[in-house]
């Protein structure tokens, strides 16, 4: 499979390069408090490597109601990975619209807002409210969540997902991305259901369900919420397999993620069928990882281009 570098068309959006962030792994407001306005500027304007590291920004998951998140500890370092049980803290839809959106509107790149709901009704309410906002360029549905109406994980079962999406899809004309859960028997079947029900793209993988034992208290859980999700290099091979499986089944574009740390990893993700590549955990190790990875990707393509001619 041949993959191209440079600017990318994705669901009608034009992105400068294929690297975006994984939802919940970059906070624009906090980054601005820490690094100043430089982080909000267009890439390259202040010199090579400067500016916002991603070609689009994906917000963390927004829910209808405000959530404080899980009790700490929320983090555990696993072999070449991170287990988190953050618990989706967010200001709720109203708080997001009032406080975050004005800040996010200053971003030099398109904004994708990620939402989660525990029923089709909740999701419809979220999607409708965000559809009304011009600052939002696309929506991402985080379906790693049990449906309170049926008890099933919305994203774990093709039928369940199809049923929910049939209700949600008509509520917006904006591009709708479905962020799949990897904790399922046949992710390609779920992706197919998303496509059938009108999704414009799928994103994967989310974290793998994981447990962290307490380092000092035998038998006790370390995380405040007992279980969490595994991300980082440890899951990269699983992510590549799932993206590849999905690419073999659907025609809509794929946002591939999971353990991407370098341009080579991003290229691997593109080569198995992703259109965009999201960087999550690696941004924790290096806040500007997105910039580095997109540069490395460029260099890879430049080199292979030279080799090919």
């Amino acid at each position: 499979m041949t993959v191209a570098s440079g600017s990318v068309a994705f669901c009608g959006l034009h992105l400068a390069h294929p690297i975006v962030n994984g939802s919940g792994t970059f906070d624009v407001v906090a980054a601005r408090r820490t690094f100043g306005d430089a982080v909000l500027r267009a890439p390259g304007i202040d010199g090579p490597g400067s500016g916002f590291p991603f070609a689009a920004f994906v917000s963390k998951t927004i829910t209808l109601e405000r959530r404080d998140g899980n009790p700490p500890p929320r983090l555990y370092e696993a072999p070449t990975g991170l287990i988190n049980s953050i618990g989706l803290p967010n200001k709720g839809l109203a708080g997001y619209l009032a406080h975050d959106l004005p800040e996010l509107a200053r971003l030099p790149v398109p904004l994708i807002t990620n939402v989660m709901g525990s029923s089709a009704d909740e999701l419809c309410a979220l999607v409708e409210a965000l559809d009304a906002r011009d600052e939002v360029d696309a929506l991402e549905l985080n379906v790693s969540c049990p449906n309170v109406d049926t008890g099933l994980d919305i994203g774990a079962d093709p039928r369940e997902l199809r049923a929910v999406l049939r209700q949600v899809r008509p509520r917006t004309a904006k591009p709708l991305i479905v962020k799949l859960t990897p904790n399922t028997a046949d992710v390609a079947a779920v992706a197919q259901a998303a496509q059938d029900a009108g999704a414009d793209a799928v994103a994967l993988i989310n974290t793998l369900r994981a447990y962290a034992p307490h380092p000092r208290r035998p038998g006790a859980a370390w995380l405040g919420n007992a279980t969490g999700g595994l991300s980082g290099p440890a899951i990269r091979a699983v992510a590549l397999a799932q993206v590849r499986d999905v690419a073999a089944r659907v025609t809509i574009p794929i946002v591939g993620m999971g353990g991407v740390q370098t341009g080579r990893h991003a290229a691997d993700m593109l080569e198995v069928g992703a259109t965009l590549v999201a960087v999550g955990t690696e941004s924790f190790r290096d806040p500007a990882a997105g910039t580095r990875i997109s540069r490395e990707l460029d260099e890879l393509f430049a080199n292979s281009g030279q080799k090919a001619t």
Partner: protein
Amino acid sequence: MSLSEPRTLAPFGRRMLAVAERRELGAYVVLAADDPGGPIPRAGQFYMLAAEREWGGRDDGRPFLPRAFSVLRARAAGPAEGAAGPAEDAAGPRLEFMLEAVGPGTERLCELRPGEGLHVTGPLGIGFPDPPDARRALLCGGGVGTAPLAIWQDELLAGGQPAPALLGFRDAAHAPGATLLQNARVATDDGSHGHHGLVTDLLDAELDADDHVVVYACGPPPMLEAVRALCEARGVPSRLALESGMACGFGACFGCVVALRDGGYARLCVDGPVLDGALLAEVPAP
């Protein structure tokens, strides 16, 4: 972003420094690295550090994430030293950190030798605010919690404010940490050095003598909790430099939270690490 926050903005992204010096101070290691062009941090701010090489591959493949360290000192240094004008800014500071090896990350950092590469992001977080209400500063720390108090004492003394320090250490092997501050009174758990007992014994006595103070504290959670409770009981304001497990250090992961008295959580890396003790119902045990 409040303009009055004691926060120096960090250059975006991590940068690679070279270790300039490594010295042992009792059981601690002090690591220094020149940060050319880097900003001058505020006392109480921290950096995320990772070794360039061999970051990983120990127990359970760790370390993987960078580790947080308070800046111990940040002095003008390097090639432009002695140059005219704002030399510090041009040359960038020599950053110093005080480390104790407690796990794979700190063990690896403690092994670093001059010339080896150090990934650095920072300065991060909010440092110590000035004393309120013309109160006298009283520094109270323990173990590696000594580090942020050292740079804060420098700053207070330079501003003409007295800044007496009370420091607690485990034993005589750790007590040399006290030499990082001026005129510190020391307590050791085993009585091998200074007062035999807790540093909060010293704090209690000090507050008996004069409680028109603000207590700046950093140290192990049980000590910080004792300081917080003592200050609260006596109506003395406290500014606590807290610790928690961090993945990113810049507000991205929402992992480093501490529960607030009034509900909800604060991210220590962007809303701290220095917090007003009054915001907390307790300093959580690790």
